[in-house]
């Protein structure tokens, strides 16, 4: 196995283009575990830890730019995730446990594209975009279009994720991420990421994403629309959830049956709404 540690994005892209079967390694929390379990044996690894300009969180006019190499722990501790962007901070806090949060990176997490992971839904709820870099430079992919299937993303062969751009969103918005797990530190049986804004007691803005109920995070404009301009009554939430349940395609696995997952959608949505109502 060959191992490279490029120092720039261009150099990294060049190696990815040159070497067959090359894979990026960021935190290694997932990749190395898979290699140890003989699930993967890439012939080339491209370590991203020395690539400059892809780590850390910076504030700009539009909102935040999160470098791909930023760890879950850094995001979890950051105070920059104001308003609805907070959904990302809340998700980071609920990923696994401290050792994994210290290792794992947001770029690695979304590139792995596990439908039970926490960042994918949070980024969709935050309406974020993913910056990928390739031979032809950079392009932005809306989070909604980034996840294509189980462990499958829109990142092309010789590209890699370099940053996540998070728009500020409505100023008065709030964000929350909730998940049901079997034990502490587990992947979600079902998770819900939610961004809401209130105008008096009316909901003026809503974006819901549900995790672990389909091959990709579930987001429906129609469901958001049910909550937007509603009073967020239990009935409103049930109506939004019903659309999501209908669009979901959950599986039976050791974390729970498809039926249980469907049952959790409205219940977790209610939990998220009620947490945000007390926050707002």
């Amino acid at each position, binding site marked *: 196995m060959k191992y490279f540690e490029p120092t720039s994005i261009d150099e990294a892209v060049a190696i990815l283009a040159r070497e067959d079967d090359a894979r990026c390694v960021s935190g290694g929390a997932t990749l190395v575990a898979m290699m140890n379990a003989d699930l993967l044996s890439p012939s080339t690894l491209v370590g991203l830890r020395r690539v400059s300009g892809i780590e850390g969180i910076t504030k700009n006019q539009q909102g935040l730019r999160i470098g791909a190499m930023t760890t879950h722990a850094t995001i979890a501790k950051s105070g920059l995730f104001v308003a609805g962007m907070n959904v990302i901070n809340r998700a980071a806090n609920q990923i696994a446990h401290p050792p994994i949060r210290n290792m794992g990176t947001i770029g690695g997490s979304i590139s792995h594209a596990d439908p039970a992971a926490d960042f994918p839904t949070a980024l969709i709820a935050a309406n974020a975009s993913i910056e990928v870099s390739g031979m032809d430079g950079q392009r932005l992919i809306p989070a909604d279009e980034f996840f294509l299937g189980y462990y499958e993303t829109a990142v092309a062969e010789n590209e890699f994720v370099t940053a996540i751009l998070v728009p500020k969103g409505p100023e008065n918005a709030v964000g929350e991420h909730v998940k049901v797990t079997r*034990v502490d*530190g*587990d992947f979600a049986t079902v998770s819900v990421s939610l961004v809401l804004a209130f105008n008096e007691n009316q909901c003026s803005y809503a974006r819901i994403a549900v995790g672990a109920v389909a091959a990709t995070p579930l987001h429906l404009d129609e469901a958001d629309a049910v909550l937007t301009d509603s009073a967020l009554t239990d009935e409103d939430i049930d109506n939004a959830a019903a659309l999501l349940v209908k669009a979901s395609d959950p599986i039976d696995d*050791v974390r*729970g049956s498809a039926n*249980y997952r469907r049952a959790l959608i409205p*219940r977790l949505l209610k939990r998220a709404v009620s947490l945000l109502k007390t926050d707002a």
Partner: protein
Amino acid sequence: MSMPNTAVGHDVPRIDGREKATGAAAFIDDMSLPGMLYGAMVFSDYAHARILSYDTSEALKLPGVKAVITGDDFDAVLGGVFLKDEPPIAMGKVRYLGEPVAAVAATDLKTARLAAQLINIEYEALPNVLSVDEALDPKSTLIHEDLSDYFRLKPSSFEGNILWKASISEGDVDQVWSDCDVIVEGEFQTQAQHHLYMEPCGALAKPEQNGGITIWSSCQSVFIVQQKVADYLQMPMAKVRSLVPHVGGGFGGKGGLHIQTLVAKLAMTCSRPVKMTLTRTEDFEIVRSRHPIRIRMKTGAKNDGTLIAREIDMVLDGGAYADESPAVLNWAVFVARGPYNIPNVRSNGQLVYTNKLRAGPYRGFGNPQVTLAGETQIDEIAQKLDMDGFKLRQLNAVKTNDAWIGGQNIDACGFDACMTGMLEATAGAEAEAAAASTSNKRRGIGYSALTHMCGIQSTSAEVHLRADGSVALVTGVVDIGQGSNTILSQIVADSLAIPVERVSFAAPDTDSSPYNWKTAASRTTYMSGRSVLGAAVNVREQLFTHAGEMLECAEHDLELREGGFVGVKGVADAQLSFAQIAGRAMACVGGPIAGTDTLVFDGPTLDPKRAIVDGFAFTNVGIYTFGMQAVEVEVDTDTGEVKVLRVWSAHDVGRAINPAMVDGQVHGGVVQGLGLALTEEMVWGENGNLINPTLMDYKIPGILDVPDFIQSIIIEAAEPTGPYGAKGMAENSLVGIPAAVSNAIANACGVRLRSLPFTSERVLRALDAAGK
């Protein structure tokens, strides 16, 4: 004689604590020997199949491969404790998916694993028998065609895939149901739980010049490893030396063999040391599990709360091989009456083969499963009678000098004290739980009583006095992490009034240690503690004999003095150090001082006039122990999630030799019990494949799932035969937890769960079904 209390009853730090905390302690995988090879295995792809042929030629061609072994390389010897049904490696047939069929030794691990993949095995698939119902069906395919020819240690009935039946009855259950004012009946189902010791199983074997073999392995008894490997390899035990480094937990899973025979055979085949340690996944797939048990139970009482009848019918899923299942069946049948004087009891059990991993001993030995049923029914009866559960338990509780089912006398019973202690500790807790409940977060408290035992099998010990007055303790006891090295050293230190630092604890070695059965059945403190105390007292007597002669006084005028002295009572400066006495014994009179003691548990056995007993694998057990546990849960009625908030655990330990270690056993057993109650379950798929053999998929409680509040309540009702009055307690702290969690969930939100584990999904389903 005044006995200064230097050690017993104190929180003496573990003698191996520093080593373990700093990472210096060596386990099997840390060991290596010059010229050592690495082992790997080939596992069956079928749950049930005939082996038609092996092709090992490609593997043997691979550079670095030094040996390949299959069933063809072994004598056709079957092993087992109560039923000899298990070959050393699959022979002729495979009976569970993952069963080892071949093994390889090579110069490095990668080559060994690659070679294993190159071994080609041809199978002829047979129908799988995966469930208890399939196994009970007389038309199902036989997993062991030769069952009737197998050696059976004790007589018992068997038929088809039912390998053992056991029962006990007292009184006349059938006659009394009509006298009952209240009857509860239910079916309970428990699951396979993995032992999940921190250290996966492993072994290292080294061929010796004399044709023998030395084996280090992660095990619960060096003697059992020695005996079984010698049997499989048809060697005299004198040629099999078994040793053990530190062990990272066992819980019953390392009580029998795992890969020791294969590693020994590989080493002997290529005349080089061979090491093999299992990956976590391999450990899940090929070692053992807790028994899933289907239990039907019926309990009846009078209006005043007197329990008068209990009937139990259970089926244990033993998996592909008997292992110690007949004994687990036996104990589950025997203990299902619970710690109550119920005059009419019938307890029946059947043990079946299925094409899954063998089930085996696991902390509690069938008891947590039947306690779930029994203690659920106690609460249900209390509810029906509108009576307090404690009152019902106290009314029926066994007391000192009552009889156990089968008639054995209970010589020391702290059960009532456990209940009283629990009542005090949990005073106000139910009101607090009710007050803190909201419409969708319901809190509740559940209780479970429990009983277990600790007197079983045999052991022996030696204490040697060294020249400077230090002593060497030699026992053959394997400390699997529970702390027996320290407890047994404390007993010696206390009985000779020397500091624990002056006692050396010899590592178990079949070449030089006296025999001890194994670290199991909560027996080490009670059984080995007795023999260690006996050996130390024996040394003390010899010290006194010498001192009497040296000081020219009668032995009854002598006393032991703190720090290793024997002195004349009332005369402060008339004393001898142990070193002075040792010097005399070694150089002049009598020879070196050594004390020995040996014993077998031979308490009164079952009374045939009182109980009808059939198919019991063992009857020579006793010294019953008691406890009471309580759990507070919060159930989220929207999602079914169960959060454990507080746990109280009261155990009659006879005497706490080391209270901190009692607390440690309580904490560990409680958490392992919470895993059993709430999340852990090994799940097999349609082909008999284990679906969740990783820690990603099989979930034990994480640190944030463990409640901050676990209160250990130590009750000391001295056992007359115990060392310093001590009894066992190590399994006990797990036994009542599933039942207490079940009762707590019922208390919190009014639903009854009868299938373990109580996952959030099952809780939600029960809530939905009950319309809550």
